[in-house]
């Protein structure tokens, strides 16, 4: 596609696109009788997904914000999806994860089975690995927001995609 055309598309489509998504998102909120505090996993399989591993890696990097992690989760729609169990991957990730943030996030998403504290010896326990797997990879935030703990700025999550782009004055 020629560059010039692409650019024009950008400016015209972007604005309206953004509006429609916002509307549908609001509709979702009102249709959904579950309150954000007590999310009920949706039944219909969906391919959109934001997992808690992603949440565990993100922070609000707004200029001047010192403590942008962990982002609070505002739940509109959570889905649970079975994902292949990959022990190498779990062991690989265990050392990279901020455990406390994962425990909090999974509780917000309606799963409170993770132990308060964890250390590498627990990786020998099958039961632990399955819980870790479930929290890290099988709970998906499909619609909602990630909220900066310091400023309250919301990073919307729509169709499982967190929008982490900053505004001009936040860079």
């Amino acid at each position, binding site marked *: 596609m020629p*560059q010039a055309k692409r650019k024009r598309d950008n400016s015209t489509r972007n604005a309206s696109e953004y509006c429609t998504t916002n509307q549908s998102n609001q509709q979702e909120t009102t249709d959904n009788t579950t309150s954000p505090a007590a999310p009920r996993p949706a039944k219909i399989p969906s391919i959109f997904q934001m997992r808690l591993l992603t949440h565990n890696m993100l922070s609000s*990097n707004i200029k001047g914000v010192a403590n942008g992690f962990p982002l609070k989760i505002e739940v509109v729609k959570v889905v649970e999806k079975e994902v292949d169990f990959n022990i190498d991957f779990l062991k690989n990730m265990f050392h990279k994860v901020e455990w406390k943030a994962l425990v909090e996030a999974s509780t917000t998403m309606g799963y409170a089975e993770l132990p308060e504290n964890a250390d590498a010896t627990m990786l020998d326990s099958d039961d632990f690995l399955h819980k870790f797997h479930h929290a890290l990879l099988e709970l998906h935030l499909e619609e909602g927001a990630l909220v900066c703990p310091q400023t309250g700025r919301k990073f919307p999550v729509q*169709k499982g*995609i967190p*929008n982490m782009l*900053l*505004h001009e004055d936040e860079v």
Partner: protein
Amino acid sequence: MWYLCVFYHRLLDYRKPEVESLAELFGAFSKDPTNNADLQSNGSASYSLQWKLPKHHHPDSPFHFVNLPSDDIARNVANRSILVKGIFELWGEGSNFEELEESIKSYPDERKLPYLTSDSTFKIAVETFGKVISFEEQNKRIRSLSYIPFKGRVNLKNPDHVFWLIETDDYDSNNGLPPIAGRRIFFGREIGAADRKLLPTYQLKSRTYLGPTAMDAEMAFLMANQAQAKSGKLVYDPFVGTGSILVAAAHYGAMTMGADIDIRVVRDGRGPDCNVWSNFKQYGLPMPIGLLRADNNCPPWRLGLKEVFDAIICDPPYGVRAGGRKSGGRKLLKGVIGPYTVPDDKRTGHIPSTAAYSLVECVHDLLDLAAKMLVMGGRLVYFYPVLREDESIDTTFPEHPCFKLVATSEQMLSYRYSRVLLTMVKIGPYTEEIALAARIKHLEFKENHLKWLEEGNLHSAVFSPADNHLNETGETKISKESKGKYRGKYV
């Protein structure tokens, strides 16, 4: 042990690096000295193999000899590769059939007999380069091998062992093949070969969600091989677009993550069944761990997060087709208006404006991200554009104290432009000093933007490496004549 490695005659610059990356992936450079003749004396990791050319062969020839530690490694490498037509245990070679016979006869029996037993099945394939021979002619050549004591039964469909009789005649450059002086005949046992059936399966034509800069399947698989993607590893593409590079990484079992600044591409696609996710679903591949909208100029990762990705693979947003964008508006950078505050009531629906993202800055951000986020030994694999002047690339590639550049593979896109796939391995930790230097550079770039924008030659800044701005009269001096008969890197 030396093996004969025959390549497909494509993407010539990509052939050896692919074999070397896969050789490392499959343990060819293990630290066990009894296992590896190539181990460097200081015991440090090595990334290249020993190669030799057959007599009279041009470096672009499809025929090479490569030293690999074992049949198993050779098989794994060949079977996972995209560009290896076959890796062979060479039983004999010669300039004519008499020499070939002598050579095969003198090859040790203990290496030959296990593959000639009566309870095995086999097939002999005949391959000629530089000329076509008839079916009868082929059979005649097979019969001429009767001095080899084949005891097994012939099975053309699914043999235990495949033997190849490969002949290269002397020819001038032809079909894009380099000229070879002198006839050479090889006979060997096939150890492994690329599975190119992958390519039609993954070809872009059948991809549900396509963008103008989607990476073609062959290149995406080559990139995933350079990155050594495999099960248990996490691979990140900061310019994910439609996800075509991650699809290849996921095929090899890696977990994937991607980001893009363009929300329409990464979130919306063309509807619920046509988006980045559906590109994975289409092939039954595991979904990416996460996709996000983010600007690689201000990555959204938390402060302490380091060494989390095993590989970063991407096609950054430079070049003629898709210019990069970064957040922070043009006006702001230009200093026309003061820092601008987005009114609160406009925030939710606000579309951050984006400024052009120059090549140097883009590469700087990418290297900084990779230095921080890759595990030690992790790989950064990305394209770098070069402008070709007078047929030679005089290019210095980006460098970084945390990285060692282990492969550069050029692909010519036109007379003027090439793209070079760079493979860098992280060999040093991301220190405070490096982080600080990167931060300073980051701020410098903000000022440079202003300059480039005012001078109005942003495009050339985007397309040429640092301090090497071409004078943009737009005229190209390279004449059509430079296109010789032998096409080298065009193939």
